[in-house]
């Protein structure tokens, strides 16, 4: 119990230390730098998993930075919190664990993948800053710190997306992402300003306790929903996703998938925990549902026609984000009606949250296999690739597993979460489930296309010298493969022990408030 109370702070301190000490580790040469990167990412993941385990056993963890005591949320007689508070409930810890696994896989993959480039100590510093930003967004209990960590994550991503700065496309992608991120960060700051002006507090629990719906709150809500869906890449604002995901180095793309989940986390934290029962009308839930449906369908139809493998996968992430938005939008719609919540709302939320972990794992793996193809064959164009299954058997196997999972083929984990989403959305409005099904079929079609053109077919003479990728890239990919297989084999256990506590924590607004505010004055 003693040192475990510091776990929320350690989750942020370890990657931050990793980022700051990277230039020094870079002085020691290749072995020291790679060892440092591996050590920090393993430790971060371990600490995140320990935190998840602690939160699942002991309930919501709070941590007050710099106070005399770690749970000193309301210092001497004040009625609202003044310090920087980390608040970790089951949903936050779940998201942090998911993100840290993606970061671990991306870090191992990058060790070999980036080996032929210079400036790697800067790369590893930016990588761990991005990890810190992502984890900070997921653990903080404070709106303004959410904004700060969002900015940390954004600024680190600009550098990482444009890491191959001699490619004009990479610079363009980074610039586009910079404009979108800065715009949405400013929207979030305006929204926080509205809430701070009304309630003199930025702590989520404190604001949630006092919240009454009025014009200022509605404006803040609109700004928050728009900017956070923009950052996660839902359809009307998805134009940065294909460029950024396709141009970033593959290990970074795997992490960026996790980072977009942090924006989604923010969206649902705002909708469920900050506004929650005072949300009132069904306008916001239906907005999220409609954005989800549009993302699913437009994303997948754009993906089917792509010829470049990473752009194709990037459009698929737009479509998969749509599933999550749809499911949690349905959950939000059912929030005020206990009967609807029991009938379909809670199933939808379980499906959505299960889809978050599934999506991060298989989409990260798909981006890594695309990176492996690029590393070995030197091309991302599907028209040029072909016959690579003969020379890259492990990559092919892992690609097949990931593609089957994303297409929702029955034994795999993607099927379980998609089934939960179909069942629950059908109860709301049958057309939603139909769109989701059609999207799933089109997903399968486009991944059959990738598999057939890149891996099957006759061996091409120009790929005669292609070999399997180096060990550390295989380790990075197998981490995600192992998680996918575990989720595939034990879906019931996962639903009962990881997903359901997270969904309950998200619905339980009173519990979130009382963890900081101590259940009243």
């Amino acid at each position, binding site marked *: 119990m003693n040192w475990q109370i510091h776990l929320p702070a350690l989750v942020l301190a370890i990657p931050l*230390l990793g980022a700051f000490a990277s230039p020094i580790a870079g002085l020691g040469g290749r072995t020291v730098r790679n060892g440092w990167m591996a050590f920090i990412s393993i430790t971060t993941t371990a600490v995140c998993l320990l935190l998840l385990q602690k939160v699942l056993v002991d309930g919501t963890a709070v941590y007050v*930075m*710099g106070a*005399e005591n770690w749970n000193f949320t309301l210092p001497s007689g004040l009625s609202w919190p003044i310090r920087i508070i980390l608040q970790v409930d089951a949903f936050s810890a779940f998201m942090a664990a998911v993100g840290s696994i993606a970061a671990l896989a991306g870090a191992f993959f990058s060790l070999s993948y980036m080996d032929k*480039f210079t400036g790697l100590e800067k790369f590893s510093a930016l990588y761990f800053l991005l990890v810190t930003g992502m984890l900070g967004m997921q653990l903080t209990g404070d709106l303004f710190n959410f904004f700060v960590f969002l900015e940390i994550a954004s600024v680190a991503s600009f550098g990482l997306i444009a890491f191959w*700065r001699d490619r004009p496309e990479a610079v363009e992608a980074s610039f586009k992402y910079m404009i979108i991120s800065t715009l949405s960060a400013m929207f979030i700051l305006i929204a926080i300003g509205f809430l701070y002006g009304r309630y003199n507090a930025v702590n989520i629990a404190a604001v949630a306790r006092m919240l009454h719906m009025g014009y200022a709150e509605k404006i803040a809500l609109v700004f928050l929903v728009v900017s956070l869906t923009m950052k996660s890449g839902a359809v009307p604002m998805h134009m940065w996703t294909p460029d950024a995901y396709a141009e970033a180095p593959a290990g970074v793309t795997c992490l960026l998938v996790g980072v977009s989940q942090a924006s989604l986390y923010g969206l649902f934290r705002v909708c469920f925990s900050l506004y929650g029962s005072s949300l009132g009308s069904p306008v916001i839930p239906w907005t999220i549902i409609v954005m989800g449906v549009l993302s699913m369908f437009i994303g997948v139809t754009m993906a089917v026609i792509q010829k470049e493998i990473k752009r194709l996968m990037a459009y698929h992430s737009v479509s998969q984000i749509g599933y999550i938005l749809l499911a949690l939008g349905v959950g939000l719609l059912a929030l005020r009606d206990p009967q609807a919540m029991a009938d379909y709302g809670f199933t939808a939320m379980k499906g959505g949250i299960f889809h978050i972990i599934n999506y991060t794992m298989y989409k990260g793996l798909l981006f890594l296999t695309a990176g492996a193809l690029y590393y070995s064959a030197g091309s991302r164009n599907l028209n040029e690739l072909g016959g690579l299954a003969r020379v890259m058997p492990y990559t092919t196997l892992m690609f097949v597993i990931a593609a089957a999972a994303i297409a929702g083929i029955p034994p795999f984990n993607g099927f379980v979460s998609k089934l939960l989403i179909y069942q629950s959305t059908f109860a709301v409005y049958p057309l939603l489930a139909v769109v989701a099904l059609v999207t799933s079929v089109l997903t399968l079609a486009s991944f059959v296309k990738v598999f057939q053109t890149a891996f099957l077919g006759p061996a091409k003479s120009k790929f005669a010298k292609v070999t399997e990728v180096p060990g550390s890239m295989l380790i990075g990919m197998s981490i995600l493969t192992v998680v996918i297989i575990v989720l595939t084999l034990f879906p019931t256990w996962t639903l009962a022990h990881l997903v359901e506590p997270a969904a309950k924590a998200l619905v339980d607004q009173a519990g979130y408030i009382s963890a900081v505010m101590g259940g009243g004055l």
Partner: protein
Amino acid sequence: MNPLSVVVRTICDIFTWFIGIFGIYIIIHGHMTPGGGFQGGAVVATMMAFLLVSHGGKKTLSFAKPGLYTAMETIGLLVFIGAGLFGITTTFFFNFLAGQGGVFGATVPIGPNSGVLNSAGTISIMNMAVGLEVIGGLSLIILYMFKGIRLFDNAAESGETGHDR
């Protein structure tokens, strides 16, 4: 960029010292007066801009080495997170030096007073760390922007360089 006239150079030679001292004043008094590590560091880093404009690139780059500023940046960041981690026996970022006496822990008398400089504990250590980091970082940014101008001038021959080894 070519050196400017002798008048400008002389004025800048004198003025940069005042800028440096003013910036360090802002950093050290961060907990008492407006400003702090970032603001003071930014003021100090304008020294680099002054020298580049007045003395031109050739002379300034002969002594302003990027490695020095990278080292300042890294040391600043490590001191900052180290000061946070040292407090972790209580909580992360706990001000373990405040009120302990010594250079950083003087107690402040109750009642109206003009402020006690060495009373802030880890806060002033962190201000100095951030100041060091910002001096290093902003000077590096100015140096690289200057190199970017030269890159633009002869872009036709060399082109943009990437990270390829």
